C-alpha cells in the first residue's frame, strides 16, 4: 500500500524542487506585483499605499507615453521577430547542407547568442557612435544618411538602433531551433519527393515548410513574447529617448518604476502588457491547434 503511494508520489517529488522555487520566487511575487496595480504605491513615500481601484488604468487612457510605448512595442516586436526569423531560417537552411568546416562555421554564426544582452546593446551603441563606430559613415556613404550622425539621437530613427542589435543577437536562436527541426526531418522524404520530380523550391514549400510549421509556430510565439518583454537593449542604448521616442512598454515600466519610483502605475502598465501577451499566446495556440487538426 505505502509502496503504491510512493510510486504515485514519485513524479511529484521529481518536479517539486523546481515548482516550489518557481512558485516562491516568481508566482507569489507576480500576484503581489499585480496587486500593486490597484494601489497608489510610490517608493520612499510613506503616505502612499492606498487602494485606488482602477484609477491607474483610467490614467493610462490619457497617458501619451503609454500609447507611444504601445505603438513602439508592436513595431519593435514585429520587425525584430520577422527579421530574426527570416534570417534565422535562411541560416538554418544553409547549415543543414553538409560542407567542409561546418562545425566551425556553425559555432561562429551562433556566437552572438552568447553575448550578454547589455553588452550587445553597448557594442551596437558604440557602432552607431560616429566618433568611434563605422556605421554612421557607412550609412552616409550609401546615401542613407545625409550626414554621418548618430541615429540613436534622432527621434525618428532611434528605434532602428536597438532593432539592429536585437536582430543580430536573435538570429542564432531561430537558426538553432530551426536547424534542430530540419535535422529531424527524415531524409528519405526528400528523396521520395525528388524522385517524383519535385524541384528544390517545390520540395521546400511542400515538404520542409509543413514539417517545420509546428516548430515555427511555437518558437515564433515564445520569441514574440520574449522580445516584447526585452527592455535591456533599449534601456542600455537609448534609455527610451530621445524624449521617450523609443520607449516600449517594458522599458516604460522600467522607467516608471525606477526613475519615477511609481510602482503602482508601473505595475498597472505591466498588467496590461501581460494580458496582451497572454491573449496573443492563446490566439497562436488556438491557431496552431486548428491547423494541426486540419492536417
Amino acid at each position: 500500500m505505502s509502496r503504491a503511494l510512493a510510486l504515485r508520489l514519485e513524479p511529484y517529488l521529481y518536479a517539486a524542487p523546481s515548482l516550489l522555487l518557481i512558485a516562491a520566487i516568481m508566482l507569489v511575487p507576480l500576484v503581489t506585483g499585480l496587486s500593486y496595480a490597484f494601489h497608489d504605491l510610490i517608493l520612499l513615500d510613506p503616505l502612499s499605499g492606498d487602494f485606488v481601484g482602477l484609477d491607474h488604468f483610467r490614467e493610462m487612457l490619457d497617458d501619451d507615453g503609454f500609447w507611444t510605448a504601445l505603438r513602439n512595442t508592436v513595431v519593435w516586436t514585429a520587425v525584430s521577430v520577422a527579421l530574426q526569423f527570416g534570417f534565422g531560417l535562411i541560416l538554418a537552411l544553409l547549415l543543414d547542407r553538409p560542407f567542409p568546416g561546418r562545425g566551425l562555421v556553425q559555432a561562429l554564426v551562433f556566437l552572438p547568442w552568447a553575448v550578454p544582452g547589455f553588452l550587445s546593446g553597448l557594442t551596437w551603441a558604440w557602432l552607431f557612435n560616429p566618433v568611434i563606430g563605422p556605421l554612421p559613415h557607412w550609412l552616409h556613404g550609401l546615401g542613407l544618411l545625409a550626414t554621418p550622425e548618430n541615429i540613436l539621437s534622432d527621434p525618428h530613427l532611434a528605434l532602428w538602433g536597438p532593432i539592429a542589435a536585437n536582430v543580430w543577437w536573435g538570429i542564432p536562436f531561430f537558426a538553432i531551433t530551426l536547424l534542430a527541426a530540419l535535422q529531424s526531418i527524415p531524409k528519405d522524404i526528400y528523396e521520395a519527393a525528388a524522385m517524383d520530380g519535385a524541384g528544390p523550391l517545390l520540395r521546400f514549400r511542400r515538404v520542409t515548410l509543413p514539417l517545420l510549421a509546428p516548430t515555427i509556430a511555437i518558437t515564433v510565439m515564445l520569441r514574440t513574447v520574449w522580445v516584447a518583454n526585452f527592455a535591456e537593449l533599449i534601456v542600455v542604448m537609448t534609455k527610451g529617448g530621445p524624449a521617450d521616442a523609443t520607449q516600449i512598454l517594458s522599458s516604460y515600466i522600467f522607467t516608471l518604476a525606477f526613475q519615477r519610483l511609481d510602482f503602482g502605475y508601473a505595475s498597472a502598465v505591466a498588467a496590461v502588457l501581460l494580458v496582451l501577451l497572454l491573449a496573443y499566446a492563446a490566439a497562436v495556440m488556438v491557431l496552431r491547434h486548428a491547423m494541426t487538426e486540419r492536417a
Partner: protein
Amino acid sequence: MNKTATHIIGARLLHALALAAFVAFALFPLFWLLKVSLTPDDLMYGEGVRLWPSRVTLDHYGSVLRHSQFPLFFRNSLIVSAATGLLATAAASAAGYAFSRFRFRGKAWVMGVMLVSQMFPLVIIVAPIFRLLSPLGLTNSLSGLVVVYTAFNTPFAAFLMQSFFEAIPKDLEEAAMMDGATRFQALRRVILPLTLPGLAATGGFVFTAAWSELLFSLMLNSSAAVSTFPAGLLGFVSKFSVDFGQMMAAGVLALLPVGAFFLLIQRYLVQGLTAGAVKG
C-alpha cells in the same frame, strides 16, 4: 553535362558566399569591440573608424585589471553563474525527467505554470522580490542572486532537459529496474551518464543567462562588493562614458567566459533540440 556542372559550382559558390556574409555579420561587432579595446588612446579619435589601428596596445586591459574593481565583479559573476548553473540544472533535470517519463495528474497544469512564468515582464516582480528577500538577508548578497536566477532559469532548462531525456529509450532504465534497482538508482547510474552532453548544454545555457542578467543584479545588490559584471560594467559606462578603450576592454573580458563556454556546448544544444523535435 557541362551545364549541370556549372550549375552545381554556382550553387556551391552562392552557398559559400551567403554563409560568409552571415559569419561576417555575426563577428563584425565583436571584432570592432576587440579593435577599439586594443587602440591606443592617442589614436582613438584620429583613427577611430579605421578597420585596424596603426599601433595596438594592451594598456586598456592593464588599467581595467589593475585600477578598477572588475576582477572583483568577475569573481562575483563567476560564483553566481556557476552556482546557478549547477542548482538550476539539478532542479531542471528532476523536473524534466518527471515530464518525460511520467503521466501524472496535474502535469498539464505544472507545465502551463512553467510556460506562463516565462511570459510576464520581470520588472513587475522586482519590488515584491526585494521585499521577500530583504528580511531573509538575501539582498546585497550573492546567494540571493543565485536563488533568484535559479528560479528564473529552471523552467526553460526543464523543457530542455525533458527533450534530452526523450532521446533516451525507456527500456534502458526499465531493464535496470527489472534487475532490482529503484527508479532513482536507475536514473543516477544509467540515464544521467547518457545525458551528460544534455546536462552540459543546459548548465552552459543557464550559466550564460546568469552571467548576462542585469536588472535584478542592479536592483537587489547595491554594494560594489557583491556587484556582478553587467552591473559593474554599466556603472563604469555611466561614470567614464568617454573612456572607450577601457570600456571595450572590460566588455571583451566580460565576453571571454561565456564565449568559450558557448563554443563548447553549442552543438549539444542543436542535438538536444533535435531529439526533442523527433518526439514532437
